[in-house]
């Protein structure tokens, strides 16, 4: 047990950079402001979202109270939080279990496989609290204060909150461990990791779709039905994923019944954890070890073939651009996280539209949206969607961080930092542009946008993606996270990714505000687009200038 805790402690230390932070505070006093600044930035960026969320939850609570089902707010929150963790867990666990760099240090140590597995699990779980606590704390407080919960309520609430990530994370871990054990054929490890990730994603999407189809009827009916049958619906979801309900009843039901559900939740969590450890002890290393092997072909190429391979000379910028692509496409975590926004986003929309598209009501909505008087707002909505799919990825905002330990190469090569950054920018832009184009195609397909309208939106969308990519990259250049163990950390546990997305929302709000202003001032439609174009272009130029000068300055500062 002592060994286990030592491992957990070390893992947490590395995961959160505790020693590194301590070092920075005690030794490198000049850089003390950085973590403080990040904290302030996060608070400024996240507090509005949290406030919004709290109000939403308050609304759900009041609606529930009105219908004499106040625990609705808890059920919604627990189910949402657990599904969220289940979804993220697949990626986190794959990274932690199979792709972290410290595994080659841990495997030779006299440790049981379950100790390694368990310590990695705990580190990820603690990490999940960062998302789970903001999701659960407001509803638990709302319900507790709203119904006058006693000491027992708060105590149970605290424990349930801490235990919430356990079950979904174990389910994703089991999924990953079993997947890696049985499908991991050494040679195609990376490919399989990607395919496995996407399968997981589609399972979740599919079940979402299924859940979505449960309530049918028009919108008024739906809301009424939802409010009347809310406990029915919640139970419906709960039946598919009961732990969320157990937690809810554990908190909301009085006396022994509540305690019973509470105990059920805790016991199942503990039991599943035991299963994971038991299974991990048997199959974890087998999958892991075969994963550590890398296929080597060891064949010499023919003279001709070889000369074709190194028979191309390109400029440094294009060499860096191509390196970015190769490293990106060959690292499963990057592909999954980078492409899920611009590809899965639009496709999810297609699924949703296709699923609901056959109903009369949906057709009515489409014809409604196609009316000429709605052309402008619908187009602007489409543009917003384009920018959203373009901006909701972390490719640009982790571009420098991803270099990690190889950053010395960037410092050593005789290529100006602004050119290096340009190669990265083009890579990130291309991925965002893909999202813009796919969204554009969908607007044409589902809303029957005209060619000219679509072209105008595409131009604005592409300009906007350049702006978003350069802002994201600027964020990363100003404060890269170069010290990481797994590619996962560079991308998912990188605060810059979050900043990049918040910047996207900010830019969308700015452009939306501008469009609204122009519409209020009765500007003709073309002028709205021109106005948006000029504003985007101006911001893009400014942000590019800032990016290139920041690159020259910051690359010189960072030591490798």
């Amino acid at each position, binding site marked *: 047990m002592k060994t286990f805790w030592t491992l957990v402690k070390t893992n947490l230390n590395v995961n959160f950079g505790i020693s590194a932070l301590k070092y920075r505070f005690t030794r490198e006093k000049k850089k003390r402001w950085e973590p403080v600044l990040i904290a302030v930035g996060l608070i400024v960026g996240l507090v509005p979202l949290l406030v919004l969320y709290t109000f939403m939850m308050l609304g759900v609570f009041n609606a529930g109270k009105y219908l004499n089902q106040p625990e609705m707010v808890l059920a919604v929150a627990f189910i949402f939080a657990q599904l969220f963790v289940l979804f993220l867990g697949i990626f986190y666990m794959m990274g932690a279990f199979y792709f972290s760099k410290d595994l080659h240090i841990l495997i030779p140590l006299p440790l049981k496989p379950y100790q390694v597995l368990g310590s990695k699990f705990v580190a990820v779980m603690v990490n999940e609290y960062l998302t789970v606590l903001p999701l659960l704390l407001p509803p638990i407080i709302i319900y507790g204060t709203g119904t006058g919960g006693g000491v027992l309520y708060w105590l149970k609430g605290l424990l349930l909150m801490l235990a919430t990530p356990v079950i979904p994370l174990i389910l994703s871990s089991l999924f990953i461990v079993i997947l890696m054990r049985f499908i991991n054929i050494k040679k195609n490890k990376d490919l399989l990791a990607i395919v496995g990730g996407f399968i997981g994603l589609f399972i979740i999407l599919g079940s979402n779709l299924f859940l979505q189809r449960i309530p049918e009827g028009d919108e008024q009916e739906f809301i009424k039905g939802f409010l009347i049958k809310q406990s029915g619906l919640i139970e419906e979801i709960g039946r598919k994923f009961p732990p969320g309900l157990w937690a809810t009843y554990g908190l909301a039901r009085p006396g022994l019944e509540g305690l019973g559900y509470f105990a059920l939740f805790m016991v199942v969590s503990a039991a599943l954890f035991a299963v994971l450890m038991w299974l991990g002890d048997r199959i974890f290393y087998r999958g892991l070890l075969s994963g550590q092997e890398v296929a080597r072909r060891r064949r010499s190429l023919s003279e001709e073939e070889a000369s074709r391979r*190194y028979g191309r*000379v390109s400029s440094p910028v294009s*060499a*860096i651009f191509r390196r970015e692509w190769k490293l990106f496409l060959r690292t499963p975590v990057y592909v999954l996280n980078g492409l899920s926004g611009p590809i899965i986003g639009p496709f999810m929309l297609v699924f949703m539209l296709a699923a609901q598209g056959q109903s009369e009501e949906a057709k009515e909505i489409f014809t409604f949206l196609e009316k000429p008087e709605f052309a402008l707002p619908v187009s602007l909505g489409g543009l917003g969607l384009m920018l959203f799919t373009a901006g909701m990825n972390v490719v640009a905002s982790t571009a420098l961080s991803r270099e990690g330990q190889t950053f*010395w190469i960037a410092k*050593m090569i*005789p*290529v100006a930092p602004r050119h290096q950054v340009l190669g990265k920018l083009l890579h990130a832009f291309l991925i965002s542009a893909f999202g813009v184009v796919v969204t554009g195609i969908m607007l044409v397909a589902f809303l029957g946008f005209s060619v000219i309208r679509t072209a105008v939106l595409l131009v604005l969308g592409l300009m906007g993606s350049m702006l978003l990519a350069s802002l994201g990259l600027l964020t990363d250049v100003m404060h890269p996270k170069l010290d990481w163990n797994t590619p996962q950390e560079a991308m998912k546990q990188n605060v810059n990714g979050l900043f990049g997305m918040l910047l996207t929302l900010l830019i969308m709000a700015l452009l939306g505000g501008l469009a609204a202003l122009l519409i209020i001032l009765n500007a003709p439609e073309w002028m709205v687009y021109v106005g948006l174009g000029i504003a985007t272009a101006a911001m893009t130029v400014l942000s590019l200038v800032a990016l290139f000068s920041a690159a020259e300055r910051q690359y*010189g500062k960072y*030591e490798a």
Partner: protein
Amino acid sequence: MIQIKNLSKSYNKGKIKAVDNLSLHVRPGEIFGFLGPNGAGKTTTIKMMVGLLNPDEGSIVINGFDIRKQPLEAKKSIGYVPDNPDVYDRLTGIEYLNFMADVYRTPLSIRKERIKYYLEMFNLEDAAHDLIKSYSHGMKQKIVLTGALIHDPAVWILDEPLVGLDPKAAHLLKEQMRRHCDKGNTVFFSTHILEVAEKICDRIGIISKGRLIAIGTMEELRQGDRAESLESIFLELTEQ
């Protein structure tokens, strides 16, 4: 070729002096061996020479270019191999070499010839098309060496280049170093293998606690006392 003047670098707000007022001059045609105990400041000095670390004070001029003021020109003259090369695991060897050739703007004919030459020399032809991830430590060392020399830089700066190389590759590399310097170029390398330093270096510098405590040819270091080996000189100097 390499001109270092009053170079200083400290950590922890000046409390720990990693490199302390170090000056040295390495001439064209010279193999310069840089020796010192662990933590003496060898790697810190080398990293400042190639622009990875920023000095607190002092200047470094490589092939006539100041690494701080004209970094790109200086870097073009340098072929650098770090002591523990972390390279792009998910590129193949040949992709890495091509990347290096591109960023150093090496023309096609020259890059083809050099890649072929070094891959043959290091016995890497068969592995060149595999991901670097699959390489052993020594193979990584070899591919990084090849990448560093692909643009035929005038100044080679090698941090522990012989660690991890098999005897044959180490032998060939030493030959290359000699040949390179015979053409009027410069090699600056750090090592712990005193026999190698004694054998192939034209001049040797010994650094201890960030200070250059001795510099000169083997003869000058012996100061007439012929019996002394480099090992005993080293031990004596660094223990003071």
